[in-house]
């Protein structure tokens, strides 16, 4: 497929995953604030920090507002002057989708377009004002519905693979960030004496990743910083854990390589295998020794590096690299033609 289009598929998914993750995180954080009397500890600032916008917030909004639940929420939901608000991410989802409608199913496009039109409507504003939880839940469920629509309506070929790759890689980074929220709320998370406030914090983190029930399905798990971190980093069956998503990314890269004409070396494959190999060799004791925050930072950095490598290999290959491939006679055999909506319809009719 066209490299630029693959890039948009990848990013569409990443932005969508941000909307999903952050609306759940915001919902949990706002109700979590009601749970415990956490006087003196921070609830909202960590969110601003892990999203990487502390500087912008302090400059434009002010330090005195950083624990103001309404101010922070409207900053993270509606503010279109920074790229990490739900609104900005939703716009990026829609803009990417608009650019690559030729590889999406009609149903996918309409789902994205309708979500966007809704977010801009009065009824979205009203829901945000009156039923905050319902507002966040609606955003989450729109995201999940979109994945379902992709799965059941689009061709399971390269564009689909790149979308799934975007989601897997975004999840690695987001899960690391959510775990890191804890670091910014309390010092030395794995070491600290577990207090009721800590327990509430860890529960909130589990809930932010839809991990509450899955976590307790593991019979050995008791609520502690180590157990939560272990689960979110290393549980291979939990769909938001770091390792699960690296496994998944591996499978997707493998599929891309199978479709390719040449089986030359792939820098993305190598970068992923290196990261995944390091994590496979780690356990929670080693994470404690290195420091949770330091480990998470390393994961986020390595993931960013992987994205750079993917960019050079798949999304924006240099002309020199392309010309070299032509010279070596290792160009692709051809793009499978994209079937049009009409072709798909007539095909499905012929099956019934």
């Amino acid at each position: 497929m066209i490299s630029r289009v693959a890039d948009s598929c990848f990013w569409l998914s990443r932005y969508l995953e941000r909307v999903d993750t952050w609306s759940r995180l915001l919902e949990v954080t706002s109700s979590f604030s009601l749970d415990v009397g956490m006087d003196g500890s921070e609830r909202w600032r960590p969110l601003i920090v892990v999203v990487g916008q502390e500087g912008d917030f302090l400059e434009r909004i002010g330090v005195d507002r950083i624990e103001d639940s309404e101010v922070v929420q409207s900053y993270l939901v509606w503010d279109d002057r920074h790229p990490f608000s739900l609104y900005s991410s939703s716009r990026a989802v829609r803009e990417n989708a608009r650019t690559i409608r030729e590889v999406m199913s009609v149903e996918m496009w309409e789902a994205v377009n309708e979500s966007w039109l809704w977010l801009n409507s009065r009824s979205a504003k009203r829901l945000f004002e009156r039923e905050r939880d319902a507002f966040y839940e609606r955003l989450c469920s729109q995201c999940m519905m979109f994945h379902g629509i992709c799965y059941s309506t689009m061709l399971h070929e390269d564009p689909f693979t790149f979308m799934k790759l975007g989601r897997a890689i975004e999840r690695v980074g987001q899960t690391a960030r959510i775990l890191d929220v804890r670091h910014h709320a309390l010092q030395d998370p794995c070491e600290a004496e577990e207090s009721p406030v800590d327990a509430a914090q860890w529960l909130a983190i589990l809930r932010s990743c839809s991990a509450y029930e899955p976590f307790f399905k593991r019979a050995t798990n008791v609520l502690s910083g180590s157990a939560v971190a272990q689960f979110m980093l290393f549980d291979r069956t939990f769909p938001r854990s770091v390792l699960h998503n690296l496994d998944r990314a591996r499978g997707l890269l493998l599929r891309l390589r199978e479709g390719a004409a040449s089986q030359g070396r792939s820098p993305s494959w190598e970068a992923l295998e290196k990261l995944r190999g390091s994590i496979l060799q780690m356990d929670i004791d080693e994470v404690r020794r290195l420091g949770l925050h330091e480990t998470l930072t390393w994961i986020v950095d390595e993931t960013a590096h992987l994205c750079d490598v993917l960019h050079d290999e798949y999304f924006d290959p240099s002309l020199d690299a392309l010309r070299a491939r032509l010279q070596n006679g290792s160009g692709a055999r051809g793009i499978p033609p994209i079937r049009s909506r009409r072709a798909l319809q007539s095909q499905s009719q012929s099956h019934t």
Partner: protein
Amino acid sequence: MGRAQIVSSPSKTLFEGYRQLEGTHDEFFGPDGQPHPAVAGVVERLDGLKRADFRRLKRLADATFLRSGITFTLYEGNESTERIFPFDLIPRVIAATEWERVEAGLEQRIRALNFFLADVYGDQRILREKVIPRSLVEGSKGYRPELEGIRPPKDVWVHIAGVDLIRDAKGRLTVLEDNVRVPSGVSYVLENRETMKKTYPAVFRNEAVAGVESYPHKLREAMNAVAPGEGGTKRMAVLTPGPFNSAYFEHSYLARRIGCELVQGNDLFVEDERVHAKTTHGPVPIDVIYRRVDDEFLDPDVFRKDSMLGVPGLIGAWAAGNVAIVNAVGNGVADDKGVYPFVPDMIRFYLSEEPILPQVETYVCARDEDCRYVLEHLHELVVKPVNEAGGYGMLMGPSASQRERREFASRIAANARNYIAQPRIELSSCPTWTAKGVEPRRVDLRPFILTGDRSWVLPGGLTRVALRKGSYVVNSSQGGGSKDTWVVGKSR
């Protein structure tokens, strides 16, 4: 007071109280108030709708367009907004017997324009025999001397044409202008039809409306026919300037319907005079490009150096015969408004036939005699700059103020080559839904002609309607909307 109530009465039928414009041909009703024979069936069925029903259908149709994102982008300063192209649910109807003649006329015209392009970039016979003044052709902004001697694959220049027709006061369909560079609007024809079928299933069951659905398929055929090389699967792509272009929806729509890639200039590169796409699996050769990028921006090596939308080396690959570009490069000289007056002469010259379709009488300001006439008769003429599209920079003489006319006169005197003038045609009107019920609004018609091995005319085309009361300007950027166009009945 009583009267206002009647006007807004929801139980009133659609065409009740419809009043035609004086001195104008109406597409539905004759001077006696009776519907034209071809329209009678449609009028009867639509008239069965109450206004309240019609409003409901209209809301549904608008919501469908918005939800499916069938929009164009309007730029005002730094702000851009996406708009749905206003769509009128009352169709424009043309009898199949009349359409047959229009089809033949369009096909003839495109054949002549194609010969003309091959000639001006080849032997220049028509210039040597002084049928068309050389200065006019060589002075045209659309003429590209760099291309002299180039022959596009299969010698087809005009693969996709949109010819604007208007119906004059006598009811004759007349050619207003040719568009043989990158005519747009066909996606609206196809989407409008989808919407109409959902809106009026019963009408479609009972009226024999000619289908438009095969357009993408015919386009694919035409592209395939001009692809260089022998048989085999040809790789095609639609080349768009990108998502910020106001017609991006159409580019993406056509790529989807043809079943080919949608690419931007940056997605392609040329190596050894062959065009390749940059894909996730490496370079892939491309055989046919349906470009929606203007000539000037197509290849920075040959035309504008600062173009970010083009592909360096593309023209070289085309000249070497390794890629087909649809439409060919350099076509602008054929739809130049200054060349338009000579199209009937081209038809006689190349085809030894008489033109089937009439065209609007035109004064070419480049000719002294015409220019004098134009300056003396500004109050009854429409003056157009030859190199503008979209209805920009025109003078509507009859409705302009004296000051506007004076200003325009000095512009013409300063640069006569740049202007042509035509008498104002009383464009025909068609019943159209407005806030005040159904009223006459002026319409034109853009049929689309595809040419590969042979020509094919899309039945009907895009009817554009001037939604503002009294307006003659149908362009979407200036308050125009569209209608579905129905060719009905049996041809002879």
